[in-house]
């Protein structure tokens, strides 16, 4: 510990500016696409073509406000806040089932109606769970045995099930992937992970097969063209959107698939609208922006000053990236429909804010970098680990 004095872990850096710029670009593109995808629907339903756009702009402003606050908030303080986060998460998940508090929409209870807007708590619970996982798995003295996984996995498992029951399949799946990724990066043996996967296969079978529409979604996924006027309708319409877009797209605002064809064009299927209006080019640029986001997150994890920072950084980065790629995979027909928004782009305050919270924490972690001189660093790397 005496070596610690050689390492300056005080906040001595500006936050990762490339990450911040990436977020700006994605969010700016996102609000433009929300406007394009929602204008018709908004004018038909609300008589105001800017209805969704205006709200999304407000969310973006609030989100960047949150980023500004969080990049100033020392991430190590979350260590002591974790249990409160978890407590709130459980309370919120249970409260959703209390009639009069939970607000049901489209066949699920995922929302709290706060009057002026609805909150989808599972988005925030996902962040709380990630912080919790990062805390337990970065604790240094612990050996990474199968047994050690069980308690935190049980906690996250219960959260996972509660989210799944809402049902919010998309968030649940994201949470699952992130949990596995955290286990992986925090050094658990691959063997354990394979064991875990084998255990969860029958569980997954039940989760999917017991819920009829999920099974139908898989059929639709496997054979969209045979069911193109039934359950495969939406995914084939998504394909048609990309096909229409071609390489350069039809031009922003000029797509037609968003009108009565794509389901949820301004939320879950916004990537198809991007494909139609901005073409392969636009879609690949968006994919690249998320890769860029991941790369910066990975770099922040590499440069983080402690294990908690490392694991937290990579977990939050993966949470955003996995969600983005899950969404894109659904829209391009690589996986069955799960109902998951595209981070920073899809319309919706809860998704926007929770992902921006993740980004804000990342930016804070990026401020703490080791500023020892290079000679010292190259001599003995292990010095920072006792």
């Amino acid at each position: 510990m005496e070596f610690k004095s050689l390492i300056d872990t005080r906040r001595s850096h500006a936050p990762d500016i490339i990450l911040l710029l990436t977020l700006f670009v994605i969010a700016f593109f996102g609000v433009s696409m929300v406007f394009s995808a929602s204008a018709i629907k908004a004018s038909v339903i609300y008589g105001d073509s800017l209805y969704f756009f205006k709200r999304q702009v407000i969310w973006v402003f609030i989100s960047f406000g949150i980023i500004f606050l969080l990049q100033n908030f020392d991430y190590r303080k979350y260590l002591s806040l974790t249990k409160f986060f978890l407590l709130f998460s459980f309370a919120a998940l249970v409260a959703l089932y209390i009639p009069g508090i939970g607000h049901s929409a489209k066949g699920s209870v995922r929302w709290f109606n706060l009057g002026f807007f609805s909150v989808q708590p599972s988005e925030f619970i996902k962040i709380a769970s990630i912080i919790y996982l990062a805390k337990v798995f970065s604790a240094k003295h612990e050996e990474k045995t199968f047994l050690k996984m069980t308690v935190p996995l049980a906690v996250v498992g219960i959260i996972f099930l509660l989210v799944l029951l809402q049902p919010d399949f998309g968030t649940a799946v994201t949470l699952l992937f992130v949990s596995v990724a955290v286990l992986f990066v925090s050094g658990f043996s691959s063997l354990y992970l394979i064991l875990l996967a084998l255990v969860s296969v029958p569980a997954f079978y039940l989760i999917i097969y017991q819920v009829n529409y999920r099974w139908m979604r898989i059929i639709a996924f496997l054979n969209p063209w045979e069911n193109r006027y039934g359950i495969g309708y939406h995914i084939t319409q998504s394909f048609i959107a990309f096909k229409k877009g071609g390489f350069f797209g039809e031009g922003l605002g000029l797509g037609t698939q968003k009108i009565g064809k794509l389901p949820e064009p301004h939320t879950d299927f916004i990537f198809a609208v991007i494909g139609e209006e901005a073409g392969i080019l636009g879609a690949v640029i968006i994919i690249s922006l998320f890769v860029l986001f991941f790369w910066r997150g990975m770099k922040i994890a590499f440069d983080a000053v402690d294990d908690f920072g490392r694991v937290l950084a990579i977990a939050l980065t993966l949470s955003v990236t996995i969600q983005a790629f899950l969404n894109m995979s659904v829209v391009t027909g690589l996986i069955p429909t799960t109902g998951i928004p595209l981070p920073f782009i899809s319309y919706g305050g809860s998704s926007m804010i929770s992902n921006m919270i993740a980004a804000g924490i990342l930016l804070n972690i990026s401020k703490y970098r080791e500023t020892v001189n290079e000679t010292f660093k190259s001599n003995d790397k292990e010095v920072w680990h006792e």
Partner: protein
Amino acid sequence: MEEKHFRRRIAVTGVIVFVVAVLISLKVIFISFDSRITVNKNDSRLIKRGYIKDSNGDYIAISVPGFSVFANPEEIESYDKTAAALSSILSESKNVITEKISRKKKFIWLKRNISKYEAESIRSAKIKGIYILEEDVRKYPYANLFSHITGFCSLENNGIEGLEYSYNDVLNGQDKNNSSSGLFDKYGSSIVLSIDRYIQNRAYRALENSVTSKNAKSGTITVIEVKTGRILAIAKYPSFDPNNFSLSSEDERRFFAITDSFEPGSVMKAFSASAWIENTKNIKQRFNCTGAVKIGDTTINCTGTHGNLGIEEAIRYSCNSFITQSVGTIEGKKIYEIMKRFGFGEISGSGISGESGGILRPVNEWSGLSKYSISIGQEVSVTILQLASAYSAIANNGVYLSPRIIDRIEDNEGNTIRTFENNDSKRILSEANALKMKEMLKDVIEKGTGRKAKLKYFTAGGKTGTAQKFIQKSYVKNVNFSVFAGFAPVENSDICITVVIDEPKGITSASEIAAPIFSEIADDILLYRKNNVKKVTQDKIKKASEKSFSNYDKLPDFSGKTESETLDILSDIQKNYNIQYILKGKGKSFSQTPPPGSSLDHGLIIIIEFR
């Protein structure tokens, strides 16, 4: 945690993320080259079909977002429960629904074009395997009023009848090569008709009244603007609601004025008389009417015994004897020529689909009797539109204009892209003779068989015709078309109106049936047309002054309002805003699109449902 280990695992994660990113990119590219995906530019649901408007710019056919409900029978858990729930929402028979949802299919329409309320009910019922699809639906805000003119569309938004059919490509924008930029693949062009909503309504209401009270089979009125040939109204009763065309009968859908021809009887005497005065050397020649004329073996009876009379009296009293004797002095060819010039025997080119040309056989196919029969409106069959145009030509001082129903075609932004004008006006009667004919036809109303067609405020001319129907080789007494064709005012004629009532019961004579209808509507229409020019400018001034203290600057909440209260508010709004509305159902207002508080814009379409 060992940092090297950690870094390696992060690197592995990074590789996986990168691979996934590449996979998604490849999939996007793959989709673009997937030959199974066909982008059908002509898919009618991607087309914003153009409007059909009347000459005032009021929308008589529009496309609005609508709802349809379909099922995936494989997903349905209980046929019985599902059918029960749906039958109460859709008010359809449970058996019909059960039959549909129990088919071995993955997709089946249950009901197209349902109301928003029904769609919401189905959505909130959350029935497994039952889905709602939003798609554009063609709506006809005036229901029965223009149905024969507009026709209607299939659920796929392709015209099946009427102008919707004959101008399908224009309305769907498929006559243009460029796929227009915008939210839809294609924006169709809009058709602006010469039809005036007010005049059409006036004619339709008069028919409704007459056909019901006289217990007739049907009735038709056409109103033509004499100086242009524009059709201002062409109404038929009974009509049908194109919004629910499948509920109508074929008789109701039949556009009699266009598709059917009939033997018009005495109204044709105006044209045989025209032929005679154009060709005779002595227009003052008089003939004797003894109540019947013998032509070969056939006796043609007259409407009365008129004694010694000239052409004026012959027309006034519709004397068969005079007409047959007078045409006896001229060649049959001359009769044929003049009939042809008046437009009989060929389609008028009005632009309405399914138009019949009628029957006017060439002279070499005539029998010895034909010349005489044709001169009194038998052995010749004409459409109501032909008759109207022909009388219009007399009213237009002898210049024939082919009738037309379309004024112009507009693109989706309201710019005129094509206008229709009459370049083919042709003189078919010398002006002097036309004026003579008009004077005679005026006498018909002043002194003759058309007295009941007299107008209060205007002079008018016209001719009655009670045409016996030729059923199974003989003319049947009291099974008639009651016809009146007339124009007003006599000088500087403005409109030409043709009234045809098919099989009125009881009194069937045209003098008693068709002539009064002319009188009933012609005054109103002329007054409307006189005032309309002034009114438009007055309205504009009124609008400008009212604007500042308008009652409505936002869309009010209609909920709980009755239909008439709603209409009052809507017409109040229409003083300031050029809005359109569709009212569905009966009872009290239950839902509205857009919601209360929405801003009022010109062109806004408001849909209000009652239940």
